[in-house]
């Protein structure tokens, strides 16, 4: 699998990462090599083998819907870079009209 620089830049945008030109070059080569190795999964995984997403046979773990202990608002906000009026504060999300 030969990735292009454009592939790497596209995936970086999806992942909310940014790279210098040197990093893009390095990652293009390294990710291609790793994907070549990883592509071996196609050689052995026949169509009739069911996929496993999780090794434990647990399904639908339910509990009673009762209120328990939880973090206070103050504690939940204590690690935030910026807060205002008891809320997380972030930079502008929408362009002004």
């Amino acid at each position: 699998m030969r990735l292009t620089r454009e592939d790497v830049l596209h995936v970086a945008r999806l992942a909310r990462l940014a790279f210098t030109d040197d990093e893009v070059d390095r990652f293009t080569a390294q990710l291609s090599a790793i994907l070549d190795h990883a592509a071996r999964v196609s050689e052995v995984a026949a169509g009739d083998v069911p996929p496993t997403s999780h090794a434990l046979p647990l399904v639908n773990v339910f509990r009673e819907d009762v209120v328990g202990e939880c973090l206070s608002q103050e504690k939940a906000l204590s690690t935030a870079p910026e807060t205002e009026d008891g809320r997380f504060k972030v930079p502008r999300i929408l362009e002004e009209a």
Partner: protein
Amino acid sequence: MAELWQLDATEIARAVASGETSAIDVTNAHLDRIEALEPEIRAFITLTPELARSQAAAVDQARGRGEALGPLAGVPIALKDVLCTDGVRTTAGSKILEKYVPPYDATIVERVRAAGMPVLGKTNQDEFAMGSSTENSAYGVTRNPWDLARVPGGSSGGSAAAVAAGMAPVSLGTDTGGSIRQPAALCGVVGVKPTYGRVSRYGLIAFASSLDQIGPFARTVRDAAAVLQLIAGHDPRDSTSSPEPVSDYVGAIDHGVDGLRVGVVREGMGEGTQPGVKARVEEAAQRFAGMGCDVGEVSLPSFEVALSAYYLIAPAECSSNLARYDGVRYGYRADDARDVVDMNTRSRAHGFGQEVKRRIMLGTYALSAGYYDAYYGKAQKVRTLVIRDFEEAYRHFDFLICPTTPTTAFKIGEKTDDPLAMYLSDLFTIPSNLAGAAGISLPCGLGEDGLPVGIQVLGPPLSEELLFRAAYALEQDLGPLPSPPVWEAR
């Protein structure tokens, strides 16, 4: 008379309970040991001497009041820095969490505190547990106590090195693809990867949620069993934790292995495995035969392709898990952003190291439109094949043995420029994670280079009791093994 820091956990607990020594003396002996060796080993990211001393004093006071002590009361412990500790900085080895002080304890940290185990500090690790050498830490490189020019393995390298060097009698790590067993092997200590779901992951900073599992490091199999006994069990706060009751690992440890069937994994004994490693594992197989086991060879054909599947599944899960580091609720935030996407992107670009970015990129690519079926979908099928191979093997054998790693500890810097070569050091540990199964690595002698060799005993899910019996039997049969050069008192 041995130094206090040389005692194992079982001996410490007995001596504290009987009053032969005090918890505070034991804790101080370990803190002094850390002070002496930390400049060379660098096993810790954050030390917590005040917390440890106050916990130790509380144990001594409880004993003074005549209260019954828990089985590990007064035994100091070191915690991998990926386990959330209320009020104690928890970095996961990442710059993005440099100032993160969790507002809560992981479930297992609650248990460790309640057991009266003084917490010495938070140990160094590869960033977000992604790595096999502890070189991917934003807080420096941990050195192998056997040879300071070599890596301790990873990702739980700090926890392994601390126990090997006598800085802590026991520690906790996490194993997603071998991150407990591999450093245990490279540092010559015991490391346990429990069955997926055996130990609560609540409060563990997530890497790959279908693979991550917390487990102990110790210098003896019995100590490792005692620590797992403490941390194992169902937790309503982790819906993937197993509701199965926890066996009496310590009580059953000396029940022997006579009549058990042992399979030697053929794929672990190939050309890629160092001759010295192979020789020690072959000798261990003979020892099991000598103890009355029926020893044979077993093939797990999917063993090698499991590595490829792992390097799709783990990055895919990590790319999703690490999306939470967006500079909003915790962690580093870049200043002066144009808008929120710019803030997210620049915070992540600055806060994450190279290996973490590499895996996020891999995972994002493997999950992206048009590639999902070819990569992630196929990797999930391989996961099924790995499980089937193990199931077939356990129809003929009670447990399997295999080298933990293909080689002994490698040199610092040797593999940092070649991610694929680094990934290969997890070849023999990854299949257990994909299958959600249990495994223990224990030392079985030295290679021809004088460095420790680890052997794994592997079993099906929830076979810990049997694996502790097998590991203990081998440990007793081997007798005392050499200690690292730093073991001498100083």
